[in-house]
């Protein structure tokens, strides 16, 4: 490319490689395979691209050359550039060398979903949509409602009726059409897929899903940039549909291709909850595809019983020497506490899953002493308060010094 930019080429089927124009389309007509955006990176010079990124905005738009746009879109609520925190106290507790926490709760609506929604919403507007919608386990609901409000678009948000109250309230406040469906997330997803045929709306994770999922690559870019343009040795990522897990690795692969970083794709460890572990189960059984399950776990943000990118998540974990592990609800609660007590980061249940799997890997001896590990914390603890309710004691005293010394300092816990 004469202008030194990459070119967004087409949508391509991940199964049969058939190509399609860059429109609102998510399934291959020939084989029903998922479509993905493909680029021509041959026009990118590594040094020039690095300078451009470093001079770019403090948001995912600094990586616009790796996103499906010809020029940087205008967005009212940007996402990304969240902190990457070195977690020495956590590493010490786990008996491993070096751990970093990528805290994606530090996004506008407190989860990584702001990345994918920023991209999907910008593409929806470019394609001329006036209404956006989504099927959500909660975090996406918050994000779509907020970004639609900021952009002045009408929105419809579909959630399972049994969602955590915090996630329901943090969606409705933005003035969306909030639709609680009597069913599981997979029922909600099926309903939205059917509706996408009949409504001229951009369903961010249905008909514009190929663009939406590109937003998750920015987590990989940020990790590499924040580590000083280096790759970690291992990344632990929660798995719901498997899209985030596979796209973080895709981000690393693209930067390796362009020459922005050197080395190889890190070991990729996926994290699921026992109560919804179709991908972990297929991994353990050495199967190429997942058998759907009916979720029953406190990690509702990961409660997808029929994961769309399951086969690709399995392939990635195996190809990089990683694993996909599942942990119990009790381990999830302990994971939330472990992260909070050692890093000051309070995460939701999905982050509890990630931290618990990191602990599992450490205890199992999977993590070498020289390894640099990154754990991706995808959401905020204030959204799943039930998970920590009753997990600690509170002193109740009278407003007198004597009451304090007797009750607090005199208690066995304080001594």
């Amino acid at each position: 490319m004469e202008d030194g930019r990459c070119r967004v080429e087409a949508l391509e089927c991940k199964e049969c490689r058939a190509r399609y124009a860059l429109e609102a389309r998510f399934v291959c007509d020939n084989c029903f395979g998922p479509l993905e955006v493909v680029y021509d990176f041959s026009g990118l010079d590594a040094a020039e691209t690095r300078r451009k990124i470093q001079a770019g905005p403090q948001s995912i738009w600094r990586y616009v050359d790796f996103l499906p746009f010809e020029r940087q879109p205008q967005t009212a609520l940007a996402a990304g550039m969240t902190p990457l925190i070195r977690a020495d106290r956590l590493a010490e507790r786990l008996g491993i060398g070096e751990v970093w926490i990528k805290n994606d709760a530090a996004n506008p609506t407190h989860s990584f979903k702001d990345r994918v929604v920023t991209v999907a919403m910008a593409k929806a507007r470019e394609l001329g949509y006036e209404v956006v919608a989504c099927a959500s386990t909660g975090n996406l609901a918050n994000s779509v409602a907020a970004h639609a409000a900021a952009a002045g678009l009408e929105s419809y948000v579909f959630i399972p009726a049994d969602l955590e109250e915090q996630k329901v309230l943090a969606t409705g406040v933005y003035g969306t059409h909030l639709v609680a469906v009597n069913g599981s997330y997979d029922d909600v997803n099926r309903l939205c897929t059917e509706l996408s045929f009949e409504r001229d709306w951009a369903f961010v994770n249905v008909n514009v899903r190929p663009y939406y999922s590109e937003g998750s690559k920015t987590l990989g870019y940020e990790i590499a940039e924040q580590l000083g343009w280096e790759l970690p040795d291992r990344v632990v990522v929660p798995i719901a549909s498997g899209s985030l897990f596979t796209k973080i690795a895709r981000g690393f692969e693209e930067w390796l291709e362009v020459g922005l970083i050197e080395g190889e794709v890190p070991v990729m460890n996926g994290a699921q909850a026992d109560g919804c572990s179709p991908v972990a189960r297929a991994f353990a059984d050495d199967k190429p595809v997942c058998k759907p399950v009916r979720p029953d776990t406190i990690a509702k943000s990961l409660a997808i019983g029929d994961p769309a990118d399951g086969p690709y998540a399995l392939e990635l974990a195996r190809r990089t020497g990683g694993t996909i592990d599942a942990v119990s609800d009790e381990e999830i609660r302990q994971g939330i506490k472990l992260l909070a007590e050692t890093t000051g980061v309070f995460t939701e249940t999905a982050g509890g899953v990630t931290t618990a799997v990191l602990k599992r890997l450490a205890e199992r001896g999977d993590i070498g002493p020289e390894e640099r590990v990154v754990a991706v914390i995808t959401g905020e603890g204030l959204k799943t308060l039930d998970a920590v309710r009753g997990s600690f004691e509170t002193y109740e005293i009278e407003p007198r010094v004597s009451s304090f010394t007797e009750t607090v300092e005199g208690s066995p816990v304080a001594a």
Partner: protein
Amino acid sequence: MSITVKIPTQLRAVTSGEAETDVEQASTVGEVLDGLYDRYDGLRERIAEDGGLRRFVNVYVQGEDIRFLDGLDTTVEDGDEVTILPAVAGG
């Protein structure tokens, strides 16, 4: 005896644009699909392979994923609704 089948947008090119059709004389999901394959050229290649469904094709009977039932052997009754959908949405 009649089963209603809902056709996703992605298959309407081979069903002459029809979004819904009826199949008579079928007692299982497999027989319903066979009925459709006979009727519509090009449909089988798009959604089936090796005697089963392609891995990104989901089929539901009365809203229930047939993988929770008996797969292609799942029985269907008069008035049932069978839905064919792409599996790659969501998350």
